[in-house]
């Protein structure tokens, strides 16, 4: 990011390639509405571009990036309610139809529970899984204390674990 701030456009491309998938999934699974998710995803990156002159490496870039995304999500949630998103299942294995069905059902069940989580718990889980943020970093990105972040993450994991153990 510092290189990009200095005028190196190629540095941004590397940064973008590293984080694009995880951030996209984080936003998509938080919103469940693809078109809005894409708009917010783009907006998050535009804010990164705009803020390059003010960027200071006081925290991990990842934490900063997800803080921006979190703020955009909060703004969105304040304006609208949540809508379920239909996920693509293009990654299902094509060679075993039975396993394909089972895998799809398992994934659907897991997703169903994930989507049913309270938004704060889901966000904490996604920040942890997609962003790779620690509890302290989740707390920083979401603007909460570490105890609250740890609690949210623990509740989310416990509910998902219950699904797996069924």
């Amino acid at each position, binding site marked *: 990011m510092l290189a*990009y701030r200095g*005028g*190196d*456009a190629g540095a*941004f*491309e590397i940064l*973008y390639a590293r984080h*694009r*998938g995880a951030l*996209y*999934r984080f936003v*998509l699974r938080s919103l469940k509405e693809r078109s809005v998710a*894409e708009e917010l*995803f*783009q907006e998050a*990156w*535009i804010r990164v*571009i*705009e803020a*390059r*002159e003010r960027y200071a490496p006081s925290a991990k870039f990842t934490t900063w990036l997800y803080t921006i995304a979190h703020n955009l999500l909060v703004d969105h949630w304040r304006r609208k309610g949540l809508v379920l998103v239909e*996920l*693509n*299942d*293009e*990654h299902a294995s094509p060679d075993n139809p039975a396993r394909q069905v089972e*895998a799809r059902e*398992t*994934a659907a069940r*897991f*997703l169903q529970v*994930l989507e049913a989580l309270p938004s704060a718990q889901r966000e904490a*889980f996604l920040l*942890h*899984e997609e962003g*790779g943020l620690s509890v302290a970093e989740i707390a920083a990105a979401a603007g909460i204390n570490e105890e609250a972040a740890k609690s949210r*993450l623990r509740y989310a*994991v416990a509910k*998902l*674990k219950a699904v*797996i153990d069924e």
Partner: protein
Amino acid sequence: MSDDPKISARYRELPREEPPRALDEAILAASRRAVEARPAPLVVPTGRRRWYFPVAAAAIIVLAVAVTMHVERDRPDPEAFAEAPSGLAPAPAAPAQDALRERMTVQPPKPAASPERSRKSGRRDSVSTPDPQPERPALEEKPAPSAQRDEMPSVQRRAAESTGANVRGAGAPELSGVVAAGVVLPPEQWLQGIADLRRQGRQEEADKALAEFRKRYPDYKIPEAMRERVERR
């Protein structure tokens, strides 16, 4: 990543969605534009916000023009302001105003008022000051009653008080007072005053004034016609 690896593994089994290619290209293009156009603007005008800047500039210009026009239109016209009180004065004079005007007519006319200015301020003065009087020589003005003496110029007032001759003749009080006060009049005016005194039968005062005149103007040759009028016969 989660404390429970099974949760993470299960999550990893979920479809790994990626942003569309068009979205990637739009973001990367924006990043390149931002670097090329230095210094970076505070807000990059992309997509739906591209129209913000022209509209904001146009709004500022329209507002500035509107404020300027408003200020120009509301500025008071000095001419209109000068004429405005004339509309407030009633055209026909009420009896009370006539009495007031009667009292005020003894005030000395304002010396420096130009005709133009007198015309402009005429009606306003009709309430507080008299209308301009027909021009007449100062020595022929009506005698000022004692109540009106305060309105006289201070030199004339002092002269009138010193002689006590303030109600007897048209030009006499002024001449006597002015001479007594040591004011030097032009010879013609002085002689005319003396002639008036003679005509009114105030011979002693005329003699005194003539004597004073000769002291002030010892070389002045009095015209024959005037001499007959100013000398005691």
